[in-house]
């Protein structure tokens, strides 16, 4: 490791340590990503994200990393939601309305049942 020669170096060291801590912290968390490209938005992805946020709030769910991103590139499947439970493979759901989002939150995120009927069909 290069020596610390200045306050700036010290700041960088702290940042690195923080990132490592965050990465470790994130392995115990559920990550949910909502696709918010133009088509996604037109298909109702904002309402999907809102439903997920409301569910988190109503049920006081801890350790959820919620993100929205641009187009996820899955033609015809918008709104798309990707869910990664701790230590699990990513699961991709398609045509996720607000109502289906609530189901996914309850049945998969909370209870671990995959809900195969909403998975993206390639």
């Amino acid at each position, binding site marked *: 490791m290069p020596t610390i020669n200045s306050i700036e170096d010290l700041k960088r060291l702290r940042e690195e340590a923080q990132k490592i801590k965050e990465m470790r912290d994130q392995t115990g968390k559920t990550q949910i990503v909502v696709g918010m490209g133009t088509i996604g*938005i037109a298909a109702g992805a904002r309402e999907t*994200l809102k439903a997920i946020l409301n569910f*988190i709030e109503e049920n006081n*769910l801890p350790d*959820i*990393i*919620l993100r929205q991103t641009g187009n996820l590139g899955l033609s015809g499947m918008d709104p798309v939601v990707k869910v990664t439970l701790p230590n699990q493979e990513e699961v991709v759901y398609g045509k996720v309305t607000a109502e289906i989002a609530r189901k996914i939150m309850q049945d998969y995120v909370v209870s671990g049942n995959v809900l195969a009927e909403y998975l993206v069909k390639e």
Partner: protein
Amino acid sequence: MRELALHILDIAENSISAGASKVEIVVKKDSLNDELWISVKDNGKGMDQELLARVMDPFVTSRTTRKVGLGIPLLKQAAEACNGGLTIDSQPGEGTVITTKFQDSHIDRMPLGNLADTFLGLFFGTPDVNWVLHYQVDDQVFEFDDTEVKQVLDGMPLTDYRVIDYLTNTIQNGINNINENVIKQGVNYAHN
């Protein structure tokens, strides 16, 4: 899109893709001049003259996965259908401002829609960006900059249910208060 707030969401996504760390959304209604102004300003990577000239074309996009970028052309069309227009100011390395103007009372002017949901979605879904909202109707202003909230939370997750509740109420109430004040003033004008 059925709401201008959804167009705002769409344009803000461009800002995120451009690597912005700060995005300011401004919605201003000017009753005297019958104008509605919407702008999205970011400090992302910006566009050079060449890309700027081409970006209004739906078949131009920075994306590599698809060959179509509909957001800007669609919004431009929506504005022009209302005696308005869309302009872009952008400098490579500095950022971009997309400004749209609508004739507020135009029969084809789509509703603003749920601006709170758009802003909250961006705030919770992209926490690394500093989000600023300026909502103004004539002289009534609601301004929200998430800097203070994030400073106070100091790394605590935004999706804590109390934070969601607080932010949702702050944004919704801020916007609703402006709208209610405007209605009240409208009643006063009618009586005078």
